[in-house]
Every structure is written in structure tokens, then in C-alpha cells.
């Protein structure tokens, strides 16, 4: 019996240890400090907030702390930010920025041309890491002309320079005190010091981050005093935490399931909003593999897929039907391209014309005894892709096409995009401010699904040449004409099957006001939000 007593004592000690250790975890500030405080959640930790590097830093958090020279506004319009104004030389190679006076970093130090140049230099010193971005490749030199004038010289006239300067990374500005002793931000930073409206004031890795208002901020100060970002990896848990009131706002694309969004919206207990088109959910159709080499088959797929049913049944009306690769509200994309509407008859006629005939008594079409079978590859962790794929499988069956669904984990799915090992594969556009120029530029890179899908087109070389031209021309009319030709050809060749225009979603408690969407897909406009 004494041994049982020992066991009881051990159990008691275990419980005591638990109670003691339970207090060891972190905990964001309590209720007393919640008055002007907003809590929302993100699926990942915010990262180290190095403005000149990428993962694991989360873009929305980088955008809270750091600012660009110019910002991307509605419809692709470029507006002043840290640069009050700018001039471009006649040959399009020299940009002279007049910096905003009186701007201070969150540590109180001044933002001037010297600080700006130091940031440009740090990014250029790590140019290899940024070579994906043509902006960095095109910069030849930077010069602090005077205290508030910064000149950036490009190797060529590069028209998207201002759009790419507005990106969240890598060209935003770290305060000099945040630089490591070596000056190389590629090795890390000492502290996230920016000019933006928010300052990181408390951080527990993997659990939460607290941002407070930057009292040195040059612009209109945020209405909130504090924003807490909790790490919640699971979407359903996020919804439950929201309903309990542990978080005030759910924001973003795919942060919760569409069913949950609909349920919260229909409850009428919360505010809900859906943004305009931010990017396009599309399928790349391989023009260099099997039956989809034939333009008639590719066009038949477009006519055979009932997108509206997907919008109503899968997206529950939260996304809009997409007829073109880029939404017409993006720069250079309002081209009046004719949609390839849903029509089972047209699809059937095109397949007949291509020689894919449905033998009597058989379910699927055949040509020379070979059944018309295609593979649609999707990311098995993405429920939306799976649902869209299943609807498409049903639709194509009606026109005699056997669609095999290949769901794989994310990295294997990415590998297929790179290898071109697909007939159809999900491949979304990048959203503003990358669309259209960055995505179009990447169409020339073989490791992209876009390149693979287009690689069988007889005019691929011509498309790539025009892409090269459109990025360098300084003639606005010529640029518009080139975009029209590039996007028009891709539309006619049916190498993309656009499904829907993706949106950002916001759900918030009714004591939260001022929720809006940013034109940039990865920014959360917290500055205007208030809470009563």
C-alpha cells in the first residue's frame, strides 16, 4: 500500500508542477488596456520584420512598420508617400525623388536622403537574392543629391519602376539604428525601426505580437492605440475565437472557410465586407502536352465549364466570375476581350471538329481508340481548389471529357507547375501591384506554370519578345498596344481558364468601424480602423 501512497504523492507533485508552469506562457495585455486596442489573428508568426528580406516575415506586418517612397493606389495610380514628388528624365533612366521633410523613424531619428541611400545600398549589396525583381536588376546607382533629394539611376528605362518601388519588400526603409554593425541587412537587423504608423512593442514568437501607434508618425495618426496579432493557425479555431470575442477582426483571403464566412454574414451579428477583385483564380492549360496541344480542345474546355455554378455553389457569391486573366480594373487590362461563355453545344462542336468523337454507348470521347482523358492538378490542402476541380470534373463529363483529379501536397503540386507535368493546373495571378507587369514578366521563366502552359504555342517566342519590349518602352501608347497584343493572344489561345476574381474578406464585431481594403493585396489598412 505504501507504494500506492508514493504513486499518489507523485501524481500530486505532477499537478502542482502543472499549476506552477501554467503561468509561464505569454499573455498579451489584459482587459484594462483593450479600450483602443484591436486584436486580429494571422496563421503564422510575423517573423523578424527585416524590411529587405522575405520569409518568415509576414508582408502585412512589414507594411505596418515600413513605408515606401511611393504608394500604389486604386487602379494602379502611384501616389506620394515618403517621396513628396519625383521627376523622370527624358530617357526614362533617372528618377529624382524629393523626400518628404520632417519624417522621423520610430526611434526619433530623421529620415533623409542619406538614410534612404543606405537602404538602397543594403538591398543592392544582396542583389542576388532580389534578382526575381527586375527593379533591383535595373538599378545602376543611387545618389543622395542633398539632404532631401535622392536620385536613382536605372540601366534602362523601366516603366514599372514606381509600381515596384511601392512593393512591401524589399525596398522599404529601416532606421539607421536598426542596421547591424556590418551594415548588411541580409545578415539580419538589430530592431525593426521604420517610419510607418506602427511600432512593434511586444512580441512572443509563435504566440502574439503587439504593435503600438508610432508617436513620431508624419501622417494622420491611427485611431487605435494598439493592435495585437495572435497566431492562430487553424481557420475554424479563428472563427470560434472571433465569436467568443477574443479577436475583433478577421481579414484576408482564405483565412476562414467560405462556409464560415457565410454563416457569420448570415447571422447579422457582425459586420462583413468583400473587396473588389484582388487577383485571379485561374487554371493554366498546357499547350504542350497531350490533347490540350489542340487549340480547339482548349477552347472547348472554356465553353464546357460552368463558372457561374462554381461562383454560386463553391464561392457562395463571395467571388466574381472571371472571364479574362486579369480583372479589367488592373492597369492596361481593360481590353474588351470577348468571354468564352458556357455552352455545352459549342464545346461539343469544337471537340467533334478536333476529331474527338463520342462512340455510341461510351461515356467519353475517343480519337483513334484513345479516350479523351485529362489531368487536373491541385493542391490537396486547398479545399477550394478541390471543390472547383470536382465541379469541373462533372461539367467536362457532360461534354465527354474524362477529367482525372490529381491532388497532391503543396510542394509536389508546385513541382508539377515547374515541370509542366499537367494538362490543367491551378495557377493564380499575383495580385496588385504585381499584376499585370510582374506576372507577365515571369511568363518568360521556365519554372512557371505560365511558361509551361504557353510553351506549345507557335507564337511563344513572339509573346516573350513583346513582354521584353513592354517592360522597357517609355511610350505609353506603345505599351498599351503591346499589352493588348500579349493579353489578347493569350486569351485567344485559351491557355488560361480564368475561374474567379479573388477577393479579400473582412469580418468584424459591430464595435469596430472604418474597415476598408487596400489596393495592395497583402496590406491590411489598420490606420483608419476604430473601436468603441
Amino acid at each position, binding site marked *: 500500500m505504501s507504494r500506492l501512497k508514493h504513486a499518489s504523492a507523485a501524481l500530486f507533485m*505532477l499537478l502542482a*508542477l502543472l499549476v506552477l508552469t501554467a503561468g509561464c*506562457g505569454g499573455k498579451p495585455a489584459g482587459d484594462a488596456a483593450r479600450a483602443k486596442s484591436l486584436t486580429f489573428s494571422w496563421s503564422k508568426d510575423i517573423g523578424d520584420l527585416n524590411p529587405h528580406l522575405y520569409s518568415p516575415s509576414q508582408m502585412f506586418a512589414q507594411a505596418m512598420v515600413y513605408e515606401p517612397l511611393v504608394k500604389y493606389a486604386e487602379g494602379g495610380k502611384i501616389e506620394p508617400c515618403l517621396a513628396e514628388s519625383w521627376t523622370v528624365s527624358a530617357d526614362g533612366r533617372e528618377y529624382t525623388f524629393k523626400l518628404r521633410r520632417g519624417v522621423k523613424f520610430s526611434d526619433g531619428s530623421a529620415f533623409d536622403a542619406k538614410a534612404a541611400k543606405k537602404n538602397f545600398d543594403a538591398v543592392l549589396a544582396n542583389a542576388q537574392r532580389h534578382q*526575381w525583381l527586375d527593379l533591383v536588376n535595373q538599378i545602376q546607382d543611387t545618389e543622395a543629391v542633398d539632404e532631401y533629394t535622392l536620385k536613382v539611376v536605372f540601366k534602362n528605362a523601366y516603366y514599372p519602376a514606381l509600381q515596384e518601388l511601392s512593393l512591401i519588400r524589399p525596398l522599404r526603409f529601416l532606421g539607421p539604428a536598426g542596421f547591424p554593425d556590418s551594415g548588411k541587412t541580409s545578415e539580419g537587423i538589430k530592431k525593426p525601426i521604420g517610419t510607418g504608423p506602427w511600432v512593434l512593442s511586444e512580441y512572443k514568437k509563435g504566440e502574439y505580437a503587439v504593435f503600438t501607434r508610432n508617436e513620431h508618425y508624419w501622417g494622420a495618426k491611427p485611431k487605435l492605440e494598439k493592435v495585437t496579432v495572435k497566431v492562430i493557425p487553424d481557420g475554424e*479555431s479563428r472563427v470560434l475565437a472571433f465569436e*467568443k470575442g477574443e479577436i475583433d477582426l478577421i481579414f484576408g483571403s482564405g483565412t476562414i472557410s467560405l462556409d464560415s464566412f457565410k454563416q457569420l454574414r448570415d447571422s447579422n451579428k457582425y459586420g462583413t465586407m468583400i473587396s473588389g477583385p484582388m487577383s485571379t483564380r485561374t487554371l493554366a492549360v498546357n499547350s504542350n502536352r497531350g490533347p490540350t496541344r489542340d487549340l480547339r480542345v482548349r477552347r472547348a474546355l472554356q465553353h464546357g465549364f460552368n463558372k457561374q455554378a462554381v461562383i454560386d455553389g463553391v464561392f457562395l457569391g463571395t467571388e466574381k466570375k472571371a472571364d479574362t486573366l486579369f480583372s479589367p480594373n488592373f492597369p492596361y487590362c481593360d481590353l474588351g476581350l470577348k468571354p468564352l461563355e458556357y455552352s455545352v453545344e459549342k464545346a461539343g462542336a469544337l471537340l467533334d471538329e478536333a476529331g474527338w468523337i463520342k462512340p455510341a454507348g461510351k461515356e467519353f470521347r475517343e480519337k483513334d481508340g484513345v479516350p479523351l482523358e485529362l489531368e487536373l492538378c491541385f493542391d490537396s490542402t486547398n479545399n477550394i481548389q478541390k471543390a472547383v476541380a470536382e465541379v469541373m470534373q462533372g461539367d467536362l463529363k457532360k461534354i465527354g471529357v474524362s477529367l482525372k483529379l490529381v491532388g497532391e*501536397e503543396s*510542394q509536389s503540386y*508546385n513541382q508539377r507547375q515547374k515541370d509542366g507535368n499537367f494538362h490543367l493546373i491551378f495557377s493564380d495571378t499575383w495580385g496588385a501591384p504585381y499584376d499585370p507587369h510582374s506576372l507577365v514578366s515571369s511568363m518568360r521563366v521556365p519554372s512557371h506554370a505560365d511558361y509551361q502552359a504557353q510553351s506549345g504555342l507557335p507564337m511563344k517566342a513572339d509573346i516573350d519578345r513583346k513582354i521584353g519590349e513592354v517592360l522597357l518602352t517609355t511610350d505609353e501608347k506603345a505599351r498599351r498596344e503591346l499589352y493588348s497584343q500579349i493579353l489578347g493572344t493569350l486569351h485567344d489561345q485559351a491557355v488560361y481558364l480564368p475561374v474567379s476574381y479573388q477577393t479579400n474578406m473582412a469580418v468584424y464585431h459591430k464595435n469596430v468601424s472604418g474597415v476598408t481594403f487596400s489596393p495592395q493585396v497583402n496590406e491590411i489598412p489598420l490606420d483608419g480602423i476604430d473601436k468603441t
Partner: protein
Amino acid sequence: MVRYVFMRLAGLVPVLLGISLVTFILVRLVPCDPAEVYLRLSQIPPTPEMVASVRADLGLDRPLYAQYLDWLWKAAHLDFGVSFATKQPVLAEITRCFPATLQLTLASMALVLLVSLPAGILAALYKDSIFDQFSRLLAFLGASVPNFWLGFLLIYLFSLKLDLLPVLGRGTPAHLALPAATLALSYAATYTRLLRTSMLDCMSADFVLYARARGLRERLVLGRHVLKNALLPVTTAFGMSIGHMLAGSVIVENVFAWPGVGRLCVYSIFNRDYPVIQCYALIMAVIFVTCNLVVDMAYRFLDPRIRLGGGRQ
């Protein structure tokens, strides 16, 4: 006894070597290059030049044997390298997350013991009673309800409807209650039934009949003879479960946003973060082997007939 423990610990070295090699090979057999994964996570198009540059940064451009030997040498000095994804030292990442998982596991273990010991004993003593039937129902539920679903149900009931506990996160004992209960339920159900069965077997054994014939009080018979012997198989299973709980808490950690090592491991697998995966596998191997050793030692405590390593008492 000391010699036995020493020998068992010495046996850990080849086990760890084997596991390190197998893990090293297996993670590299999975398709997709970590350099590409890093680029995609950063929303950078993985051009061949970019991939080559990142591969060089991560040290993946060297021959495999050189990578392994280098890793092994450093690991022997407790340097497990730097995480591909977070750029932080791996050991620091794991030690940051481990206390949360340990806390969750200890709480779940305590719950399992608190529930399964009395429930198992009562179910055996009152065999076929309503209590026994109820414990059987709980066992079926515990074994069949998926962890994530149970977690959501508990949140819905205790947090949303009754407003008694927080939904998620870590901080106070209240934060611990739901994840610990979620993790504990299936184990508690299993051990209740296991203890019941084991006790019933012992109750019909000859030595119990003999104890009763000697006129011992029923309490003494049950406590000293039945329960002590019935605990042997339960101890074995429980010891093995500690490792499983530590390694298998990932779903619960995800549902409750519990910042533990399971979440770190899954995140690392998705990100092909080789250094973290390798270190995690080694630590889990040490934990499993240690748990086995502790179970064997507990056997000696519970059943003196068992001689560890063949030595004399």
C-alpha cells in the same frame, strides 16, 4: 542496476546514429527542394538562378555525405544548425517550443491518471453495472472521436456556450484545460478499459483466492494484490504513451493555437526545413528510449520478480 541503466543509455548512441541517418535520407527523398520552398514562401518566383543561390546559402550544394558528416559533427557538439525557414538556431527554436508541449503533455497525463485509475477500478469492481456500461461507451467515444473534432466541440461548449474557458492560446491554467482534456480523452478511455480488464484477470487469479482464504480484508486484497498486479500492463502502455503524446500533440496544438513543438515540426515538414526535422527526430528518439527505460525501472518497482538485466536484488 546502475550497470543496467548505463548499458541502456549506451545503447542510445547507435539508435541515435541510425535514426539520424534514416531521417537524413528520408527527408531528402521527399520531392521538392527546400530552396524552392523557401522562395515560394517568400513569394519569389523560383528561377534556376535564385534556386542555385539559395541552395548555396543553405549549404545544399555540397555532396550529401559531406552534408551529413558536417551535420553529425556539429550535432555531437549540440549544434543542430540554423532553421531554413526562420534563420534561427534549431536548438533555440525547439527549446522555445518544447516547454509548451511538455506542459500540455504533463497536464494530459495527470488527467489520464485522474480519470482512468478510479474509472478502471470502479468498472472492474462493479462489472456489468451501469457504471461499467457507461465507461465502455466513453471508451468507444474516446477511441473513435477525432481529436480536432473533439477540440472544436469542447471549445463550442465550454468557451462559446458556457463562457467558462478561453478559446485558445497559452497563458493561464484556464488556457490549459481544453487542450489537455482533448489530448487526454482517447488515452483515458483506453486506460480505463485496459485497467478494468487487467483487474478482472487478477481478481480471478489463484493468488487472490489464496489471499482471501488467508482472511485478508477485501480492501487489502484489492489494493495490495489485485491493483498492484493489474497496473503492470497499464504502466507499460502508459510509458509508451508519454512519447506518443509529446510527438502526437500536433493536432491539438493546431486547433488551440498552442505554441508547441508539434506545430513547429509540421511547419518544418511543410517547409522542408531539414535541420529542424532532423533535430526533432533525434529528440523524440531520446524521449522514446528514455520512456522505455523508465517503464522498465517502474516494472522493477511494481514487480520485484522481474530482475533488470538479470542482476540480483
